[in-house]
């Protein structure tokens, strides 16, 4: 009994010492002061130096929290409990959050740096007039491939994937919209198509891709391609950029038929307490120099036109990640399909996945 009690006392004492250390660390960073801003972002999706810079400029302390999926983030915001002042969801989620009345309109007068955003990326279907959201990073869906493993073969279009030589070579990201969209695009339909016949046609076309498909995977696709487990992958440009940093042999291409244009956007959730600070933060991130610094750190494509001047030529000149006007005109943003069509997309994609074996 004595030894049990002794262990208990040791454990409690240890926890309180640790608690004290954490408290010291927290207060040394100023978290205990009243003027704070809670930012909810994807993991490792901001240059930490920028947070420090923002804190120094404004005197507001930033509490930075991370999430791993749009859905999880929305659940947390819906329930309240934490007063998130800024969140950074993807575009399709903004539509849903608007429907659920979870967002506060952004006062454009308080974010003068909005003028820095490229007009191509403003006023898009998921948020007309950018009433609720400001683009943070953007990208495309495309194909990464390893020319060395394909004997120098070049891939330029979705239809190249149906080549009989590519047996068991392709990895697909596990997303109904992405993969159904790929098939629709390859048939020159819109990736927001709701026509039942078109969707059926797209699914049948996908079925014929089956012999070439090696796997349908999630985030691990990145490592598999980096390590040369497969020579071709269909995925997002942000992920492609990371693969290309690690493995220089790999190429990325936005198929000529067109593809998806995706966005992560800054929004102010209903839970926000420091609305003024949130506007300051958005304006700070839209500043050309700051946006450039963040872009260099994160490596995704920035929608900030003014920031381009501060970025090295080999980033901004890279047409794979900063496609020209002509290419972007072919890119489409996902629209809210509504429950019925979305269910149809999901069902058809599921049937395709089951068809594989």
């Amino acid at each position, binding site marked *: *009994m004595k030894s049990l009690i002794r262990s208990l006392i040791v454990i409690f004492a240890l926890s309180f010492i640790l608690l004290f250390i954490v408290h010291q660390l927290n207060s040394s960073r100023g978290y205990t002061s009243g003027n704070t801003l809670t930012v909810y972002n994807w*993991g490792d999706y901001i240059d930490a130096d920028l947070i420090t810079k923002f804190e120094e400029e404004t005197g507001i302390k930033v509490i930075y929290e991370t999430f791993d999926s749009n859905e999880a983030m929305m659940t947390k915001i819906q329930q309240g409990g*934490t007063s998130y002042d800024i969140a950074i969801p993807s575009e399709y989620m903004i539509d849903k959050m608007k429907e659920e009345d979870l967002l506060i309109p952004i006062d454009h007068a308080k974010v003068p740096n909005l003028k820095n955003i490229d007009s191509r990326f403003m006023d898009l279907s998921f948020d007309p007039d950018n009433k609720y959201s400001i683009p943070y990073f953007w990208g495309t869906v495309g194909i990464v491939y390893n020319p060395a493993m394909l004997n120098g073969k070049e891939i330029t279009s979705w239809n190249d994937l149906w080549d009989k030589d590519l047996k068991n070579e392709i990895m697909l990201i596990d997303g109904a919209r992405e993969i159904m969209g790929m098939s629709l695009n390859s048939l020159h339909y819109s990736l927001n198509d709701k026509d039942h016949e078109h969707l059926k046609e797209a699914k049948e076309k996908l079925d014929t891709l089956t012999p070439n498909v090696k796997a349908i995977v999630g985030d691990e696709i990145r490592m598999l391609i980096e390590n040369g487990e497969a020579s071709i992958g269909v995925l997002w440009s942000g992920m492609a950029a990371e693969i290309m940093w690690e493995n220089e042999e790999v190429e990325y291409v936005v198929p000529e038929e067109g593809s998806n244009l995706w966005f992560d956007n800054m929004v102010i959730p209903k839970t926000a307490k420091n609305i003024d600070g949130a506007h300051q933060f958005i304006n700070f991130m839209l500043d050309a120099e700051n946006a450039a610094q963040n872009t260099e750190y994160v490596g995704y494509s920035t929608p900030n036109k003014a920031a381009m001047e501060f970025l090295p030529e080999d980033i901004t000149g890279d047409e794979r990640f900063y496609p020209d006007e002509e290419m972007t005109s072919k890119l489409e943003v996902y629209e809210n399909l509504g429950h019925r069509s979305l269910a149809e997309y999901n069902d058809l994609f599921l049937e395709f996945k089951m068809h594989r074996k």
Partner: protein
Amino acid sequence: MKKLSKWSVLYLGIVFVILYAPIFYLIFYSFNSGGTMHDFDSFTFDWYKELFQDTRLLIIVLNTVIIALLSAAISTIIGVLGSISISMMRKKGIRNSILSLNNVLIVSPDVIIGASFLIFFTIIGIKLGFFSVLLSHIAFSIPIVVIMVLPKLEEMSPTLVDAALDLGASWKDVLTKVIIPYISPGIFAGFFMALTYSLDDFAVTFFVTGNGFTTLSVEIYSLARRGISLNINALSTLLFLFTLLLVIGYYFITQRVNKASQAGVRK
């Protein structure tokens, strides 16, 4: 003990290689200057340095350890008292139903527990953060402690308690001098199980974190989209060593407890 045959040694060896290879693989690359989990460049301590310079990550690690220690200790206390009262119940029917309720909590999916905690806390107005995480960790650890402790109680002969009472021991003495010393291996096992459960729980914790308070598992999951850098390898290496120390400590504690009980001394 009979000597193991060659085949069983080989079999055991293979099992252990499979169990430990991924961990050693991860540890090995935490020293890679190349920055990836393939192509070992050269030996470096950079990731460890980077780890200790990252105050935010350090706070998260400490949070995780604090929550694990506190929740395991508190749930052990509650769980031990609970299992003693369960074992003392006379009516079999009630006893079994309480036990099944306990088991339901163990098998029910973490996401559901997490989501219900989130809704519960927001409804009764508890701010998400340290206490919400602590409370939910205590809650999901209690059933684990109960199933670790209950077998020990059942193994104990009821005549022990009767004899103590006959010899004039009060109920308090019976509890502190007979029952608890007898079941203390189970208590330690329960504590360490609760500790590991708390350390690696993601699903429940995700829902109840907030206001700047996060644990390691939540943080690592959220890195999935951008890829995990090698300082997470370094961190995992340190945590692995930490748990190794815990296990060694656990071994020595149980050794001492066993020796004491064999000698018939109850301290």
